[in-house]
C-alpha cells in the first residue's frame, strides 16, 4: 500500500486499482526475466563456447574484448551450473517472498512482531543470515582452502597443541606447545587447509542445497498438491498413491545406488533428494488446498467468473503459502544432514568443500586436534537448530491458530 492511499472509500480511484493484480504479476515476471536472462545466457555460453578447463568470465572477457577491464576488476570467476542455478533460485526467492512482503508492509510488520516474540528464533535468523552472507559473499573474499603440509594441525588463535603433533608451528612456541595465529583463526586440518576458509566455503554449499532443494520441492509439491486437490477423482487418487511411493522410498539408499552405478556430484545429490523429498509437501498442500477451496471467498471468486487456474494461482496458493514456507524450513535440515552424512562417509562430492567432509577429515586427529571436528560440527548443528527454531516461530507468526509443532 502506498502512503497516499485515499482515506475514504469514495475517494478511491478504482481505475488505478482494477488492474493492480495484473501489474504486480507482470512486475514480478519482468524482474524474473531481467534477472534470469543473463543467467540463462551465461549457462548456454558455458555449455557451447567455453572449454572444459577455461574459466567462464576469463573467456567472456576475451570474447567481449574487455579482458583488460575484467582483469583489473579481478573478475575471473568460474561459476558452475549449480552456482548459476543458485543465483536464479535467489532471484525466485526475491520475487516470490521478498517482493510480496515489501508490497504489504502492514502485514510484514505484523509478522515481524509476532516472529520477534520468539527470541531463540530471532537469534537463529541471525545465524542463518550469517551463513547466507558468508555463503554468498565469502567465496569472493576468502580463497578456497588449499593444501599446505607445512601448516598442518595449526591450533585456533587462542588454542594450543602439543609440539609432538605439529611439524612446523606458525605461531609462538611456549613450554613445548604450539599456539595459534591470526593467519588461521580456527586452525588448520591434517593437510594444512584453513578450517575457517573451509567452513565459509561450506556455507556456500549449505545455502545452495537450501535454496535449490527448497525451490524444486516447493515447485513439485505445490503443483502436485493443488492439481490433486482440484482435479479430484482418479487423478487425485493416482497422484496421492504416487506420493505414497515417493514417501516410502528410501532416498539415501537410492542415492547410494545411483552413486554406485553412475557416480554423482552435488548437483545429482540435490536433484535426487528434491525429486524424492516433495511427498510430504504435496500431501500438506493438498489438504490445505482442499480446506481453502471450501471457503466462501473462493465461491464468490468463481461466481465473478474467475477460471480455475486464476483461483488456484491467485487465491489457493497464496493462502497456503504461509504453511508451505513453514513446512519447507522444517524439511531443509534433513537435506543438509543427508549431505553431511554422505560427505562424512567420504562418498560426497569431493570437488566442493563441505562441513561433513571436514568432520570426517578431522576424525582421526580428534584427541589432539578437536577443532577440526568441532567447528564444522557445531556450524552444522547450529544451522539445523536455527532452521527448526525459525520454522517453529514462522508457524506461530503466520498461522495464529496453530501451536508450534516440530513433526512436519
Amino acid at each position, binding site marked *: 500500500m502506498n502512503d497516499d492511499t485515499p482515506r475514504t472509500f469514495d475517494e478511491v480511484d478504482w481505475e488505478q486499482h482494477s488492474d493492480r493484480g495484473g501489474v504486480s504479476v507482470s512486475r514480478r515476471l519482468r524482474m524474473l526475466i531481467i534477472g534470469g536472462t543473463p543467467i540463462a545466457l551465461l549457462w548456454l555460453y558455458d555449455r557451447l563456447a567455453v572449454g572444459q578447463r577455461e574459466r567462464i568470465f576469463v573467456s567472456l572477457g576475451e570474447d567481449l574484448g574487455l579482458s583488460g577491464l575484467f582483469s583489473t576488476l579481478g573478475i575471473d570467476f568460474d561459476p558452475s551450473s549449480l552456482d548459476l542455478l543458485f543465483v536464479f533460485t535467489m532471484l525466485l526467492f526475491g520475487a516470490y517472498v521478498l517482493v510480496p512482503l515489501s508490497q504489504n508492509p502492514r502485514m510484514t510488520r505484523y509478522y515481524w512482531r509476532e516472529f520477534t516474540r520468539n527470541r531463540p528464533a530471532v537469534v537463529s535468523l541471525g545465524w542463518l543470515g550469517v551463513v547466507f552472507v558468508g555463503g554468498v559473499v565469502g567465496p569472493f573474499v576468502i580463497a578456497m582452502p588449499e593444501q599446505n603440509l607445512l601448516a598442518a594441525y595449526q591450533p585456533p588463535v587462542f588454542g594450543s597443541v602439543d609440539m609432538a603433533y605439529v611439524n612446523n608451528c606458525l605461531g609462538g612456541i611456549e613450554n613445548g606447545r604450539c599456539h595459534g595465529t591470526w593467519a588461521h583463526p580456527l586452525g588448520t586440518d591434517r593437510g594444512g587447509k584453513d578450517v575457517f576458509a573451509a567452513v565459509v566455503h561450506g556455507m556456500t554449499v549449505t545455502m545452495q542445497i537450501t535454496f535449490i532443494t527448497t525451490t524444486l520441492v516447493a515447485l513439485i509439491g505445490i503443483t502436485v498438491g493443488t492439481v490433486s486437490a482440484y482435479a479430484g477423482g482418479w487423478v487425485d487418487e493416482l497422484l496421492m498413491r504416487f506420493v505414497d511411493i515417493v514417501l516410502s522410498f*528410501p532416498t539415501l539408499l537410492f542415492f547410494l545406488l545411483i552413486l554406485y552405478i553412475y557416480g554423482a556430484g552435488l548437483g545429482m545429490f540435490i536433484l535426487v533428494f528434491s525429486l524424492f523429498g516433495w511427498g510430504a509437501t504435496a500431501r500438506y498442500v493438498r489438504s490445505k488446498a482442499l480446506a481453502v477451496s471450501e471457503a466462501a471467498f473462493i465461491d464468490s471468486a468463481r461466481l465473478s467468473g474467475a477460471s480455475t487456474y486464476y483461483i488456484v494461482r491467485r487465491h489457493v496458493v497464496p493462502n497456503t503459502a504461509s504453511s508451505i514456507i513453514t513446512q519447507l524450513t522444517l524439511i531443509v535440515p534433513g537435506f543438509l544432514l543427508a549431505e553431511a552424512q554422505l560427505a562424512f562417509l567420504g562418498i560426497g562430492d569431493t570437488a566442493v568443500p563441505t562441513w561433513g567432509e571436514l568432520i570426517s577429515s578431522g576424525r582421526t586427529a580428534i584427541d589432539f586436534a578437536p577443532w577440526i571436528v568441532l567447528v564444522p560440527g557445531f556450524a552444522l548443528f547450529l544451522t539445523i537448530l536455527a532452521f527448526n527454531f525459525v520454522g517453529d516461530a514462522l508457524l506461530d507468526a503466520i498461522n495464529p491458530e496453530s501451536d508450534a509443532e516440530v513433526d512436519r
Partner: protein
Amino acid sequence: MGVGRYIVARMAWAAMVSLIIVTITFLLLAFAPNPSVSEAATQAALQGGDPAAAAERERALRGLDQPLYVRYADFLRGVYTFEWGWSQNRAQPVTAALKEGIYYTAQYSIPWTVLTLLIGPLVGVYSAANMYSWRDHIATGVAFFGWAIPNFFFGIVLLVIFGVHLEWVPISYDPTVPVVSVANAFQLLLPVVVLVTGSIGAIMRVSRNESAEFQNAAFMKTARAKGVSPLRAYAYHVMRPTMVPLSTTLVSQLLVIFLGSSLLIEIVFGIPGLGRVTFDALINQDTNLVLGATLLFTFIAVIGNLIEDIVFTILDPRISYDDR
C-alpha cells in the same frame, strides 16, 4: 469396508509399492554399464584379444544378451524367492551376509527403538502436564538438541569424551563378546544413547503438542471429578488419544533414523552391522550385495509404512475405511 478388507487392501498396496521400487532398481541396473563386462573387454584388449567379442561373451555368460522382459522376469523371481546372488567380496551368499549384518544391527536397534517408544511419549505427556514449567523447558531443550545434533558428530564427540579421555567405555567394538553380557551392554551404550537422543526429540514434541489438547478436554474433567487417580487419568484418557496422531509420525521417524543413521553410527563405532555391510559392498563394487542391501532396506521401509497405517486405523475407531 471393514477393518479386515482395509488391511488386505493396504497389504496389496504395500506389495505393489515394493514391486514398483524393485522395478525402478532393475531399470537403473539394466541401463547402467556393467562393471564386469567392461572389465572383460579390458582384459581381452590387454591380452591382445578382441575386446568387442570378449564383452559379448561376458554378456552371454551373465545373461545380458537376453531381451529385457526375460531378464526382468528372472530378476523378479530372484528377488521374491530370496535368491539374491553371491557376494563376490565376502565369498558368501548375499542373504547370509545380510543375516550376519542384521545380527549385529539388531543388538543395538532393538534397545534404542524400545527406549524411544517408552521414554518419548511419557516425557512428552509429562511435559504437556507441566507445560511451561522448568521441567517442560528442559525437556524441550533436550528435544531440540537431540533433533538438531547430527548423530555421527554426536557419536564422535561422545566416543572421544567417554572412550578416549574417561575410558568408561571401550573405543573399539568387539564382535566376539556374547550378546547378553555386561561387556556388550557397555560397548553398545553409546550407540544406543546417540540414537535415542536423535529419535526421541520429534516424538517428545509431537506427543507434547498433541496431548496438550486433551489435558483440559471434557472427558478429563469428568474423570477428575469422578476421582480417577492422575496416573490412570493420564494413562487412559490422555495417552490413548495421543497415540493416534503420534503413530503417524512415529514409524516414519524411526525409519528415517534407522535407514539414515544406523549406517553412520556403525561406521563411527565400528559395528559390523547392516550399514557397515552395505557401505563396504559399495566401496568394494560388490553389485549383488549392494542390491541386496538396498532391497532389504526398501522392504523394511515398505513394511514399516504398512504397519504404521494399520496401527493407525486400529487405534482410531473413528476412521472410515472408505476414505483411505
